[in-house]
């Protein structure tokens, strides 16, 4: 997903010197640089997606624990007939490669198998768990982008001054705090001691989840006009968001500071300053604009790592999202569920990065126009 250029020594300006080499490329739709760029990125993403299915498959087949015992109960596992039936039904008696293609075929029909733990279709479980994590992750990423980029900008502009030192120190501490500990500490402080925030879970026990549209309680409650439920959902979001935000902000501050410093040293920023533009105009019109591509990339990475990084936090806050689901599935070696989570998070990661690549393509005229 990196934007590294492969050839650095190609003699530049060759095209510039060759008047005859300008070709009319407008006739062919696919020949347009932006279309080709997106096409290639899409192809790479698709290959990666396929790779993820292979990884999940191999991984779960390498696990030295028989899924039989994991799947069947205490009594059933001691009955050979039941075991044989299970093995046959699950296709475990076929060669691995056949099993993979069967898996892939089912996948294309949206069938991720049945969770051993919950006995629900994994798709259904993921459908339940994912919105919870997505709500949390989106909330965290939005706050983190605002805070992270803002503080990163301040730190970069005030490089080496006190505010920079302070922001850097705080952001470094942010990425140094063990999340599982911080989650407990925040929970202890704000719920147990201060009672400012509600307890674990996504809603108060008495509250009824809003009618499901997106599965995200804040959105759904607003959609159905249940304002009290919305407030309840928001207050429940507060602590886990706080926990995760500290880390994500730390990460984004550090990155955006570097990216912005990099741009601040560019000639075009000095040129913009030499034009006598107001400082804000230089910062937002030129500096932020120039650092948007690397920052976009890191935001994508941050979002991807958030989806899986919620495991420890969700444990503490009983969030009931992907993280908790993944933890239970892994410890119980509930292979279909683990494969499902891996696939979902992997797919989202890849798709997010693809979207970012596309956005990047549109933001940067050098890619868009060629």
């Amino acid at each position, binding site marked *: 997903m990196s934007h590294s250029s492969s050839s650095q*020594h*190609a*003699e530049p*300006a*060759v095209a*510039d*010197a*060759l008047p005859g*080499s300008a070709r009319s490329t407008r006739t062919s739709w696919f020949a347009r640089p932006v279309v080709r760029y997106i096409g290639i990125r899409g192809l790479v993403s698709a290959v990666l997606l396929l790779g993820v299915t292979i990884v999940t498959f191999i991984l779960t087949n390498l696990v030295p624990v028989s899924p039989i015992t994991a799947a069947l109960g205490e009594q059933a596992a001691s009955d050979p007939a039941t075991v044989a039936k299970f093995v046959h039904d699950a296709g475990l008696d076929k060669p691995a490669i056949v099993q993979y293609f069967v898996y892939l075929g089912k996948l294309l029909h949206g069938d991720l198998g049945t969770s051993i733990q919950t006995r629900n279709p994994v798709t259904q479980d993921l459908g339940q768990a994912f919105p919870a994590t997505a709500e949390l992750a989106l909330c965290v990423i939005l706050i983190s982008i605002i805070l992270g980029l803002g503080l990163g900008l301040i730190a970069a502009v005030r490089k080496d001054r006190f505010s920079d030192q302070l922001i850097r120190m705080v952001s470094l501490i942010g990425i140094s705090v063990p999340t599982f500990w911080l989650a407990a500490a925040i929970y202890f402080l704000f719920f147990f001691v201060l009672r400012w925030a509600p307890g674990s879970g996504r809603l108060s026990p008495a509250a009824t989840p809003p009618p499901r549209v997106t599965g995200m309680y804040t959105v759904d409650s607003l959609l159905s006009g249940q304002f009290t439920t919305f407030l309840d959902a928001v207050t429940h979001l507060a602590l886990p968001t706080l926990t995760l935000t500290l880390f994500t902000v730390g990460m984004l501050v550090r990155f955006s500071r570097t990216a912005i410093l990099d741009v601040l040293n560019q000639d075009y920023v000095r040129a913009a300053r030499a034009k006598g533009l107001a400082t804000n105009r230089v910062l937002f019109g030129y500096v932020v604009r120039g650092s948007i591509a690397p920052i976009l990339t890191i935001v994508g990475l941050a979002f991807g790592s958030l989806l899986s990084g919620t495991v420890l936090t969700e444990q503490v806050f009983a969030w009931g999202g992907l993280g908790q689901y993944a933890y239970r599935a892994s410890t119980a070696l509930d292979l279909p569920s683990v494969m499902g989570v891996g696939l979902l998070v992997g797919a989202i990661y890849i798709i997010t990065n693809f979207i970012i690549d596309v956005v990047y393509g549109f933001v940067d005229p050098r890619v868009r126009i060629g």
Partner: protein
Amino acid sequence: MMGAILQLDGVTVRYGRGASAVTAVAGVDLELPPGQIVGLVGESGCGKSTLARAICGLQPLAGGRITLAGEPIPPLGHRRRPARLLRIQMVFQNPYASLNPRRRVGDQIEDGRRVATRPVGSVSDLLTEVEMDASAADRFPHEFSGGQRQRIAIARAMAAAPDILIGDEPIASLDASLQSRIASLMRDVALRNDASLLFISHDLAVVREIADTILVMHTGHIVERGPAERVWAAPQDPYTRRLLAAIPIADGLGRIPG
């Protein structure tokens, strides 16, 4: 000793593939006889650096052939360079990038001496030859100025006892007052060691000072070739004329060239 002749026949180099390919060098013929100083002049993007890289095997050819003493020069790839090709050495444009910052100057020159096919002087001899103090051998590149580094780079190239020395814009990054001096140094060192020199530059005035023959390159083609003074005094190709006309002369007359 002086048998090596570098010969280029219809050399063509392309970048990219398919429809978006760009031809950087288009059918260049060139001969570099022993003991000759050849200047290759052209503006950015004309293909002169590509040509230099192709001669060193750093750039695969799309057409034509390059031979050294009759034998073709294969692309370098990932393998070790064949011993016979070590007789071609290069001095690069950027003195700040062409020396390994982590190794002592002496060691880097020693690398060249190790592969030399005929006896060469000691490291201090080589340093002295490029007008550097012998004590430089124990120091690191960052302790030297750009001009000094370029001298070291020349010493390193000469340590391999090349028959052919290629300077790829070796003076472009230097201060104006140094450019002539380093160019002359390269000429002297090459001649003293019986090597031919292919000196690539965009600065016709400097090239004229040191080269026996001048080639003018434009859009991948060699548009003019001839003895230095002839090219300078009576250019035949319109592009050469334009190039010559554009050279600003420090005469204090307030005349805009071109």
